[in-house]
C-alpha cells in the first residue's frame, strides 16, 4: 500500500529522515515508533506531501506521490494529528463533512455520512452533530478528528500521535475504538507514536526510527526478541524490555493442558502473557484458568512457566 524507497529529508545541515526504505502492507496498522526528533512525523507527512522528500520516493498503491496533485492526493488520505485541529468556527457535523464537501457530494449524502461516522467513532449523532468544537472534551474532539479523517472512506489513514495529549483512560478507550474501527473497515493505517505501550497495543508491524534512520522493523514479537542492544533496547527501556515482550506473546501458548480448576481466576483465551501477569498479581494467585476457545482446548497457566527461561 505504502512504499518508502530510500527516502531522505534534509533541512540545511540537519538530516531529519535518512535513507528509509519501508513497506506498509494493505490493511495493516504500521506503527512508526521513535523519540521526539527521530523523524517519524516527517516520514509520515511525506505520504500526503505535507513534506517533500529531498531524495528517494514514496509510492502509494504503486504510484509515486510526487506525480499526484497534492490537494487531490490529500482528499484520498485520512489525516489525524495530535492537536486535532478541528475548525473552531464549524460545528462537529461541518467538520466531519469537510472532505465529502470538497469532493462535491450532495447535501443529503453528506448528512447521512456524518451520522454514520459519529456512530462509528462512538458519539451520539443527535447529541454531537450541532456542537461546536469548544463544547467537546479532549477525547470527544479526537473522536471527531478521526471521523473527519474517515469521512470520504479513504483506504489509507495517517495518524500523527493522535492520542498523546489525552489522559490515560481516554487514550485506552480511543485505542480500542481504533482497533475496532480497523477490524471493521480494514483501512491501512500509518500511526506515529513515542509511546511504547501504545505501539505494542496497536501495531501489526512496528518500525523503529532513531535519528532519522530506520533501526528495526517487523512484528512486535520478533522485534523484541532481537532487541538485546542498540537504540531499540533504549527506546523500549532496558528494565521493562522483558515486560513489554510478555505483551507480545499469547498466554495460551504457555498453558498446560490440564483441566481448568473452578476455583482459579479466569483469563480470556486471547489474553497476552502481560495481562496474565497482571491478573496473577491482582488476584494473588500463581495459577490461572484459561477456558477453551476456538482451536485452543483450555488449560492452566502456571507462574513457574511464566518466569522459566525461554
Amino acid at each position, binding site marked *: 500500500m505504502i512504499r518508502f524507497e530510500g527516502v531522505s529529508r534534509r533541512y540545511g545541515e540537519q538530516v531529519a529522515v535518512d535513507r528509509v526504505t519501508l513497506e506498509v502492507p494493505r490493511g495493516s496498522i504500521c506503527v512508526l515508533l521513535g523519540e521526539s526528533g527521530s523523524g517519524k512525523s516527517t516520514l509520515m507527512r511525506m505520504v*500526503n506531501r*505535507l513534506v517533500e522528500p529531498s531524495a528517494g520516493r514514496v509510492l502509494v498503491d504503486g504510484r509515486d506521490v510526487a506525480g499526484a496533485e*497534492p*490537494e*487531490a*492526493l*490529500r*482528499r*484520498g488520505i485520512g*489525516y489525524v*494529528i*495530535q*492537536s*486535532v*485541529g*478541528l*475548525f*473552531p*468556527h464549524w460545528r462537529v457535523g461541518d467538520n466531519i463533512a*469537510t*472532505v465529502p464537501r*470538497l469532493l462535491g457530494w450532495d447535501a443529503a449524502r453528506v448528512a447521512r455520512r456524518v451520522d454514520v461516522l459519529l456512530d462509528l467513532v462512538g458519539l451520539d449523532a443527535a447529541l454531537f452533530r450541532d456542537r*461546536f*468544537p*469548544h463544547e467537546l472534551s479532549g477525547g470527544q474532539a479526537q473522536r471527531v*478528528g478521526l471521523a*473527519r479523517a474517515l469521512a470520504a472512506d479513504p483506504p489509507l489513514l*495517517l495518524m500523527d500521535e493522535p492520542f498523546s495529549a489525552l489522559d490515560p483512560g481516554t487514550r485506552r478507550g480511543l485505542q480500542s475504538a481504533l482497533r475496532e474501527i480497523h477490524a471493521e473497515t480494514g483501512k491501512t493505517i500509518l500511526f506515529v507514536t513515542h509511546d511504547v505501550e501504545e505501539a505494542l497495543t496497536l501495531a501489526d508491524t512496528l518500525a523503529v526510527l532513531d535519528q532519522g534512520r530506520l533501526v528495526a522493523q517487523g512484528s512486535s514479537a520478533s522485534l523484541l526478541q532481537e532487541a538485546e542492544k542498540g537504540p531499540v533496547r533504549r527506546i523500549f527501556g532496558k528494565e521493562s524490555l522483558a515486560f513489554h515482550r510478555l505483551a507480545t506473546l499469547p498466554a495460551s501458548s504457555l498453558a498446560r493442558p490440564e483441566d481448568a480448576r473452578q476455583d482459579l481466576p479466569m483469563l480470556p483465551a486471547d489474553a497476552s502473557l502481560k495481562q496474565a501477569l497482571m491478573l496473577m498479581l491482582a488476584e494473588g494467585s500463581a495459577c490461572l484458568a484459561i477456558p477453551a476457545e476456538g482451536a485452543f482446548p483450555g488449560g492452566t497457566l502456571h507462574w513457574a512457566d511464566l518466569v522459566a527461561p525461554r
Partner: protein
Amino acid sequence: MILLLGNLLLFLVALAAAPRLGWLWQALFPGISRPVWDSQSWFALLAEHLMLALGATLIAALIGLSAAILATRPAGRALRPLLDSMFSLAQAVPPIAAIALALPLMGFGAAPTLLALVLYAALPVMRSAVAGLDAVPAAVLDAARGTGMGPGRILAQIELPLALPVIQAGLRVALVLAIATTAVGAVAGARCLGTPIVTGLANGNLSWVLQGAVFTAWLAVIADQALRLGLDPERRRSNGRLAPAR
C-alpha cells in the same frame, strides 16, 4: 447602547436647532453681524463628512487587508517588515501635512482629504488583520491542508472567518480615526463639519468656528462611544468565533 442612542439623538436635534438659535449665537458673539451658519445645511455637511470618512475607511480596509494577507503568505513573509514600516510611516504623517502635499497634485476638493484619511486609517486595519491571521492555530492550518483544501479555500473558509473578530476591531478603530480626522479636509475645500471652522477662521467669525468645532468634536465622541460598544468583550464572544480557551 441607550447612552449612545441618546447622545446620537441629542446630536441630531442640536444640528436641526443650530440655525434656529440666532438669539443664542447673538448673545454669545454680540459683535458678529451674521452669527448663524446658514451657507449649507448642517445635515448636508454631516452627510458629506460621513461619506468621506466611510469611503476612506473602505479604501483603507481594502489596502490594509490586502497587505496583511500578502504579509502572512509564505511567499510574502519577507515583505512583512517593509509593509509594516510603510504603513507606519503613512500614519506618522499628520493628515494636514498629507493634504498640503497632495494639494498641488490633486487640486482642491475631496480627493486630497480622501488620500490623507486612507493613509491615516490603513495601518490599524493592516496591523489587526496581520494579528488576526497570525493567531489562527497552526494545528488548524495543518489539518486544513491535510484534508486537501487549497490555499485560497483555506484563506476564505478558515483563516479570514477565524481572524474576523480581530479584523473588525481594526476596522472600527480605522473608522473612528477617519470620522474624527475628516474635519481637517475643510482646509482643502472638502465639505464636511470642518467647513464652518475654516470659513469662520477666514472671515473672523468665531460663532461659526464654535459651531463647527462643537459638532465635529461631538461626532467624534459618538463614534468613539460606538467603538467602545463594539469592542465590548462580552458582545464579541457571542458570535461563536472567539471560542473560550480550553
